[in-house]
């Protein structure tokens, strides 16, 4: 039995969230729209209609290329990829072939704590197809999606496992979301993956026959399809068989790959430069502008959080997972620079805020209070103006009504009682009302102090500073 290693390259198609389609002025958002509403002569491929390049899509693709450390090419040529299918109205897809926008990049991924670099062969721009719905007796064509800008990211065959592929795709998605160029929503088809996989014996440099697996429309499908293919090909080879060069699809329900096309049926796409579009020359100044506009990416952000604020790797990763959350957090830290620690802000953010975001499903942009109010709330707790539990209650009020924390504290009378005279009075009363527990404590039953502190809190309607209350109790009971 030979042991094999998988050689995996990925092609990821990502829909860009531009206002309009790639080559016409129709809206690029198609989700939920009535069939064939967002169409015009160009994306319906009526006779005589012509394409015009969407500059925003070009900028988004270049931005992605920059984020993936690619070379951005000044001279770009669009090409026609010719094939017939009812979801492809022109009978050709406008894509890029010989001269893509971005080449020679790299993406650093982390798998189980270990770092690895995946080479990016190219990032190019093309247009999406329409959608077919198969019904009894035929198929329905919806061209709302036809012509939506699609970015294709092709990796080098540097990936070695399902876990690495998973990490690669996750990180790509995180980057496009950070850049704001795509929703990255796989379940809505905004990101679609293809895998090229072959096996090589671990002690050899000879790669086996490459198999292409298409239609991987979820992270799970990517992982399962790779796991399946590695097992299938290993079994085939170990049984003395040969891996056929085929294009396969992923059958989600059966959980296995199925052959879609053999080598003999391979398309000849008859690529040639799109004569309706002159070569697109990108101004180097524009490329520099895009590079300058590149936001801090998650990996760099997380590293900075750890170095600057001594946050744990886990907290840094959590906080930087989504750009909007990270930016909210950073704004709160900045607003509370003199009053709160980044670590306290991180605790509140990853705890209370993330919990509420995840439970409510709302976006960071829809949080009803500004980061400065969030910082103020943390400061109130940190400086002992209110206790932690009261802080959570105030946050609930802020979340619901967007009210300012000081206003809620005042309205609810939550201000912590730190006045030693006032606390002394309550403590005296509590000891008088609870002679048995007081006696137990005096007899050495340490645990009873918790009950007595709770009684002080109850009497103060939660406002007493629990630390001061406990100290006062101990002092009184010891005397």
């Amino acid at each position, binding site marked *: 039995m030979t042991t094999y290693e998988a050689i995996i390259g990925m092609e990821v198609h990502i829909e860009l969230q531009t206002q309009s389609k790639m080559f016409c002025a129709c809206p690029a958002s198609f989700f939920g729209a009535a069939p064939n509403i967002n169409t015009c002569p160009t994306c319906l491929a*009526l*006779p005589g209609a*012509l*394409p*015009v390049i969407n500059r925003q899509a070009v900028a988004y693709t270049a931005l992605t290329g920059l984020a993936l450390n690619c070379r951005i090419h000044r001279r770009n040529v669009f090409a026609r990829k*010719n094939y017939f299918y009812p979801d492809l109205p022109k009978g050709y897809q406008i894509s890029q072939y010989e001269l893509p926008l971005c080449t020679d990049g790299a993406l650093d991924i982390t798998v189980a704590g270990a770092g690895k670099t995946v080479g990016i062969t190219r990032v190019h721009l093309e247009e999406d197809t329409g959608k077919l719905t198969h019904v009894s007796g035929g198929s329905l064509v919806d061209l709302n999606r036809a012509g939506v800008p699609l970015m294709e990211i092709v990796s080098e065959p540097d990936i070695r496992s399902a876990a690495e592929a998973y990490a690669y795709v996750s990180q790509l998605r995180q980057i496009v979301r950070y850049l704001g160029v795509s929703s990255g929503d796989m379940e809505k088809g905004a990101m679609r993956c293809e895998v090229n996989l072959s096996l090589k014996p671990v002690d050899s440099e000879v790669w086996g026959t490459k198999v292409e697996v298409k239609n991987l429309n979820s992270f799970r499908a990517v992982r399962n399809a790779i796991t399946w293919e590695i097992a299938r090909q290993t079994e085939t080879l170990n049984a003395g068989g040969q891996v056929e060069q085929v294009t396969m699809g992923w059958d989600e329900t059966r959980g296995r790959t199925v052959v879609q096309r053999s080598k003999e049926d391979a398309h000849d796409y*008859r690529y040639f430069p799109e004569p*309706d579009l002159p070569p697109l020359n990108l101004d180097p100044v524009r490329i520099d502008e895009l590079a300058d506009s590149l936001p801090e990416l998650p990996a760099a952000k997380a590293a900075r959080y750890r170095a600057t604020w001594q946050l744990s790797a886990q907290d840094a990763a959590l906080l930087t997972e989504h750009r909007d959350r990270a930016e909210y957090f950073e704004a709160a830290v900045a607003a509370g620079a003199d009053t709160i620690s980044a670590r306290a802000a991180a605790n509140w953010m990853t705890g209370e805020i993330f919990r509420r975001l995840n439970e409510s499903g709302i976006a960071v942009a829809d949080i009803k209070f500004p980061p400065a109010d969030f910082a103020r709330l943390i400061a109130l707790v940190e400086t002992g103006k209110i206790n932690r539990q009261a802080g959570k209650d105030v946050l609930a009020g802020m979340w619901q009504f967007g009210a300012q924390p000081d206003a809620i504290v005042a309205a609810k009378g939550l201000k912590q009682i730190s006045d030693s005279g006032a606390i002394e009075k309550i403590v005296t009363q509590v000891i008088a009302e609870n002679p048995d527990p007081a006696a137990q404590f005096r007899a050495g039953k340490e645990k009873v102090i918790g009950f007595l502190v709770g009684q002080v809190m109850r009497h103060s309607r939660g406002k007493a500073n629990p630390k001061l209350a406990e100290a006062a109790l101990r002092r009184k009971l010891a005397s």
Partner: protein
Amino acid sequence: MTDSLFQLTIEQAQARLSRKEISAVELTESVLNRILAVDNQVKAFLSLQPEAALEAARRADDRRAAGDTAPLLGIPLAIKDSIITKGVPTTCGSKILENFVPPYNATVIKKLGRAGAIVLGKTNTDEFTMGSSTEHSAFFTTSNPWNLNCVPGGSSGGSAAAIAAHEALGALGTDTGGSIRQPAAFCGVVGLKPTYGRVSRYGLIAHGSSLDQCGPLAKSVADAALLLQTIAGHDPRDSTTLDRPVPAYFDDLKRSHGFKGLKIGIPREYFIEGLAPPVEKAMRAAIALAESHGAAPVEISLPHTQYGIPVYYLIATAEASSNLSRYDGVRYGLRAPGDDMWQTYFETRAAGFGPEVKRRIMLGAYALSAGYYDAYYLKAQKVRTLIRRDFEAAFRQVDVIFAPTTPDVAFAKGANLDDPLKMYLSDVFTVMANLAGIPGITVPAGFSAGLPIGLQILGPALGESAILQAAHAFEQAADRHPPIPPI
């Protein structure tokens, strides 16, 4: 005298309209009556819009009464059926688009509308503009008004015949390898192919996208200038249009110095064996006439001329094979249902396309195929660059080039139908302008056995003014042929 208004040039009609001597309705009625009288013989039109034309004429008269002086206000025109017209059937001479009524207008049609022009109807063309005679129209062959047994040329044969037979005051055609200039020459009218990118292709049914241009066919050079001025200009919907101001081609004719001091290149490679003696004689006479009016003829060489036909037929067919993929029966046009999806594709395209279109799709798909691309398409593009450089070098020496438009006069119907190669070779003098992207105009330059001969004048890129002025000077100097063909 409204019954002979159809004979007017645009310039003449415009003068009389603006003096309110005639109305647009009278003019349009006269032209429609002329069409009724002669089009059963000429068969220039695939479809007519008489009611819409008269309605447009009434609106034009109203606009003029309200003080509008748009340049083509009330001028009835014929439009080649390869140009998209909203609400008006547009077939491009093909069965596959037989019942196609477009929901939008080509940019050139919008511009004509704004200028006040009236669309009479759509003129015949070889199917998808692939041909030199209109014999490849899926519907019928147009006749040459000068000899009804001869072809009018093609593919804009319908527009050329309509102008020659005075069935329209002006017309639009499209030219991929000579499709405006060749029929204009065969029919004895003026036809101009602009610089690639000078006129929007938005709404031209694509044949060879890197070659196609829309241009005017007219009774005079001045009319052609006026039409070009109206349709030219940058179009945000066509990325290949040039963002350069449009000169006042028409007014500039009046300021022209004619032939005086004009350096005319005479390309050695265009006066070759195969050029019919009467055509050669007419060319020599044209050169002599220009010289006698102050021009300086210079012999030049365009060394890559011999590769024009193969290069053209590789590039045009390659682009066409892709451009025609959209005619699949899925969204519009003919659908011949088969048992499954692929069978429907096969049946639809088998039934919808004629033999010449099928031949060119196959040639083009072959030239783009894996393993052949470098040897055919890529090589052709490289030679195309050499051809372009030939012209760039020539225009550093001369202002314009004189050449025959066609090797011979119009041929008899059916004469070349069984020999596609012979048909292709007759495009030898016109394809060069498309390959080089430069403008060319043809003007009537005499007759041979009752059939017109065309003089082709080529200019540098964006040199429309130069070729219009040279053509205008020639038109003024030459004896004008009888305006009405004997039909």
